[in-house]
């Protein structure tokens, strides 16, 4: 029984369905199992007794090298995740993949191996995590699709309040980090309640759709965002935009709305057309404020624009 034990262990080692390599204390390859032969294309006789870094020169100086040193000289095991180490070993799932240099996704473990009578060895285990990586890629793609659906307003198709909150958080952090100004516009359709009461809710919805589409069309940069903030209120996030540029943008919005020439008999504006009032708040590059304070300032500016007669722009700098 005992005489069979060693060849049996070696056969088992060879047969396991993950990559297994054993190095001696001088980092020479002592064992290289069949899985490694199959996926690396390197036969036993090509690698056994060879210096590990002569066989895998690109691993020298990298994480695998450090892990081997840790195992051999410090007695510590290491784990190399697929996520942080993109496929360190040249291993392929098929000859076709090898031809395209499309490596197998790998997770690697390097563990010290104590043997009586000789200096410590180490075991390198490589597992194929391609399936898990594929599954997570799918999960992220579907999350993206789902998120873009839950982030848009059902009526107008522009970004909804939730999207606004997330974008605001992101842009606010980016402005703080990059030391750039950030402007926020609050846009409200004048006397919208009266419009709804007079023309009916269907017309009211149509007015919202038309105004939203026209204003969203003004935005040219991908980082700008226009969202439906509440009933007839819209918000616009303008990164890297100072108060002067924000005023220009607001004035363009005000003019564009009037240009739509949507009749509004119940407005106080002499034009008798649908108009908007706009409040601007700008966070200067050198003086950042909290998000709530910025929104509050834009709200106060909007209120001021309303009080000054509507169909106009007001700005507050915070």
């Amino acid at each position: 029984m005992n005489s069979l034990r060693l060849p049996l262990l070696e056969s088992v080692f060879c047969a396991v369905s993950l990559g297994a390599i054993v190095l001696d204390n001088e980092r020479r390859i002592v064992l290289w199992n069949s899985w490694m032969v199959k996926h690396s294309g390197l036969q036993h006789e090509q690698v056994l007794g060879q210096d590990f870094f002569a066989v895998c020169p690109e691993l020298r100086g990298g994480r695998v090298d450090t892990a081997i040193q840790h195992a051999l000289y410090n007695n510590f095991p290491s784990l190399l995740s697929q996520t942080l180490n993109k496929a360190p070993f040249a291993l392929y799932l098929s000859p076709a993949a090898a031809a395209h240099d499309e490596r197998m996704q790998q997770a690697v473990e390097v563990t010290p191996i104590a043997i009586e009578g000789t200096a410590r060895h180490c075991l390198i285990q490589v597992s194929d995590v391609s399936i898990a990586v594929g599954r997570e890629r799918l999960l992220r793609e579907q999350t993206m699709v789902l998120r873009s659906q839950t982030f848009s307003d059902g009526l107008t198709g522009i970004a909804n309040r939730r999207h606004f909150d997330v974008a605001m958080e992101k842009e606010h952090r980016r402005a703080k980090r990059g030391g750039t100004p950030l402007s926020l516009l609050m846009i409200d359709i004048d006397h919208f309640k009266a419009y709804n009461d007079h023309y009916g809710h269907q017309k009211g919805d149509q007015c919202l759709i038309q105004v939203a589409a026209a204003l969203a069309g003004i935005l040219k940069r991908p980082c700008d965002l226009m969202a439906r903030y509440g009933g007839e209120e819209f918000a616009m996030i303008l990164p890297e935009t100072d108060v002067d540029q924000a005023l220009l943008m607001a004035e363009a919005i005000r003019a564009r709305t009037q240009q739509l020439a949507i009749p509004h008999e119940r407005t106080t504006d002499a034009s008798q057309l649908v108009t908007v009032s706009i409040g601007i708040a700008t966070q200067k590059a050198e003086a950042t404020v909290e998000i709530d304070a910025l929104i509050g300032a834009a709200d106060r500016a909007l209120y001021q624009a309303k009080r000054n007669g509507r169909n106009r722009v007001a700005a507050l700098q915070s």
Partner: protein
Amino acid sequence: MFNLTELENDALIEIFNIGVGQAASSMSAIVKEAVRMSVPSISFIPRTEAARLLGQADGVAERICGVSQRYRGAFDTEAILMFPEDKSLEIVRLMVGEAVPLKELTEMEQEAMCEIGNIMLNSCVGTLANIFQRELQGSLPQYHIGTSDEILTATGSQFNSVVLMLHIDFLLEKHQIHGYVAFVLDISALHDLKEQINLYIARAMGKV
């Protein structure tokens, strides 16, 4: 409570700062960005208090993400790197540069977190071992999620053990994240540790 002299305390902080410094440079090499880490302070606290210190926002136990490894040799300890769950999401995603954040760490991200823990803990304990001129033997990292009490229990720590708590400041791409490394020690491990520190101090003094 178990206490160290000021000298012993300073020596330990210095050793751990060397350790996390090495971990930071390994991590910088992975993400090809500057990663900085430091240990501003350490403390010895009872196991029960450690559970309370870690994440008790408004009396509700916060979810903690932990990576543990067991070490044996010059002293025996269970070492656990711990971050509040949201911070662990932040760290992994900063390291990975992932654009689509999901609510929890995915399987692959958990493995990445294990690797981060592995680098940190091996660097800290490795530095200790080198300075103590003694060898320690470590296990592979294990991922945990739960309250700090659950994690401390899952890693097999006794209620009467003592925790050497390292406060870790982790700085990546202008994000500063606070975490902890806990070394759970029983009374004999505690004395082994103290003895090793004193041997180190004696050697250091002798050489001056």
